[in-house]
């Protein structure tokens, strides 16, 4: 019983002794590099030509840049908030505090997890790092999917904005909340039956999970910082590429085509799901956005937009690709799309 304990403390002490001086000089060098980059970027930004010079870019190219930049500027603080919450859950919360309190029964566990979004009003881009943190902490893959898909919809801010945009009466809010809740739990149930859930994860993320166990001796601060750079490394390229794609598609795809499809009960559902995939708007405000199409589209289409968009869109796929394999994401997209389409059609034909 005592032997392993002595062993690890000795090992860590030894490690500490031998690497302390090199670590200190490396830290100083690292800080210098970091500060140099900050200064360099700030100088470039300040010295860049002022707004009067438009670089002779055509309007569409400028709007592509503006739209992509706005996605980055809007999502960046939320992604970092998600990373900070994820670090808090993994490093600073007492071991197992969150997960041990969940009910034992898998179905009940997923039900509770899908309500977790109520407590953590992070929009969907911030949920990805948080879900990763929860998986490292011992959440199953299927449970993380339930959390990921339910949280952006069962989120106080989302519910309030949807209620403001559509009111309580016409069924849009109710269909969205219950539909999202149901689909998230259905997806969780289906994937809980997967024989080898590890195969759903990218090899890189699997390594992150297994590495997490070996960081024992490092201090909490050091572990937090290491986790910060690890998550940033995974999330930032995905966010930037996702934002670029969202901007590009918005400039390239004609909305008139989408709008002409809006009056048909079947096509309105499919067209608005495509729109949700393309525009990649945060679930907190997508209700206001789609309200602008309220006159042209049937209510079922709007419900599928509001249910499908927070779960799957170009930006989310890029972010989730850091964690799930491409095959898993394809399956998930098809499954969620099918459910959202059925829900939308039911609303259209049930009215």
């Amino acid at each position, binding site marked *: 019983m005592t032997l392993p304990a002595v062993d690890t403390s000795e090992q860590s002490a030894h490690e500490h002794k031998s690497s302390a001086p090199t670590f200190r000089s*490396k*830290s*100083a*060098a*690292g*800080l210098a590099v970091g*500060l140099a*980059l*900050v200064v360099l*970027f*700030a100088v470039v*930004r300040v010295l860049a030509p002022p*707004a009067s*010079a438009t*670089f002779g870019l*055509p*309007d569409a190219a*400028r*709007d592509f*840049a*503006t*739209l992509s*930049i706005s996605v*980055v*500027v*809007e999502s*960046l*603080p939320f992604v*970092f*908030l998600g990373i*900070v919450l994820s670090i808090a859950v993994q490093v600073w919360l007492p071991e197992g505090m969150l997960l041990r309190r969940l009910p034992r029964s898998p179905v009940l566990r997923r039900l509770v997890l899908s309500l977790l979004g109520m407590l953590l009003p992070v929009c969907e881009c911030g949920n990805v790092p948080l879900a990763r943190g929860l998986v490292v902490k011992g959440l199953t893959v299927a449970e993380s999917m339930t959390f990921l898909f339910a949280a952006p919809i069962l989120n106080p801010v989302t519910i309030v904005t949807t209620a403001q945009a559509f009111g309580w009466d016409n069924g849009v809010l109710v269909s969205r909340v219950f539909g999202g809740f149901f689909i998230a739990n259905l997806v969780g149930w289906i994937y809980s039956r997967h024989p080898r859930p590890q195969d759903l994860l990218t*090899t*890189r993320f699997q390594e992150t999970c297994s590495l997490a166990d070996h960081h024992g001796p490092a201090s909490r601060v*050091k572990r937090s*910082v*290491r986790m*910060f*750079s690890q998550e*940033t*490394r995974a*999330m*930032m*390229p995905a966010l*930037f*590429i996702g934002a*670029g794609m969202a901007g590009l598609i*918005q*400039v390239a795809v004609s*909305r008139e085509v989408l709008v002409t499809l809006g009056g048909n009960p079947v096509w309105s559902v499919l067209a608005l799901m495509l729109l949700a995939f393309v*525009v990649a*708007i*945060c679930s*907190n*405000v*997508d209700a*206001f*956005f789609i*309200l*602008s*199409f309220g006159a042209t589209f049937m209510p079922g289409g709007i419900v599928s937009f509001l249910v499908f968009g927070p779960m799957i869109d170009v930006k989310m796929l890029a972010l989730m690709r850091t964690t799930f394999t491409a095959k898993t994401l394809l399956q998930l997209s098809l499954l969620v799309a099918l459910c959202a389409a059925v829900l939308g059609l039911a609303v259209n034909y049930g009215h």
Partner: protein
Amino acid sequence: MAHWQGVVLGLIGLIATIWLGLTGQLALYIHPRYFVFTIIMAVIAAVLALAAFTLDPATPDEHDNDHDHAEEGRSRWGWLWSVGSVLTVIAAVVALLILPPSTLTTATVAQRDLNGSASALTLKAPALPSKGDYSAFTVRDWASLLRSGAGQDFFADKTATVTGFITPDKTDPNVFFVARFVVTCCAVDAQPIGIPVYHPGWQNEYTTDSWVTISSGFRANPNPASREAIVLIPDSIIPTTQPAQPYVY
């Protein structure tokens, strides 16, 4: 490079955000209610990024470890991966640090339905002033009134003073719109709204997307075939510069 790509990209975004905040240009991209949250998170994240440089230096063996397993499968394409990382960083530097910040243009008006947005026009239905003082009415207020179907009698004695950018009418060459974008969250959800202005030959005097201030009464459109029944017919159009808050909320 691959080890630091994420933190470097993050720093680029954070410094661009903080600079936009300091120079008062964040409004070009996001709604003012996010300003405080965005700036606070940006500063916290920048401090954490510096801490990452300091406390998590990529030691050689750790660095190898990164590539050993994860990139084994793509070793043949490894160079492509590095090129991709470098290109992403370059694209981010160009977009966020070099390009001058700008508003959306007429290209996006064409892509989205002008005045097609029910939410942009009805959520904030303007309260009618009792003393007939309409000087504070914005493009949005007037556009909402026009859409609400108020008749010609209502507009007969009213003068609008509005500022917006010029965007052409799709069908009538004699008409342009003084337009603004309504933003609910960020520029991605911007919805264009505008008031029709009847001014034949405007194309020769003004360029699309340039900002103007117009003070004028409403009249019936001289062209009965036009989609816009009530228009502004100004005596003078004053060119102006883009306001500090180009979007309306």
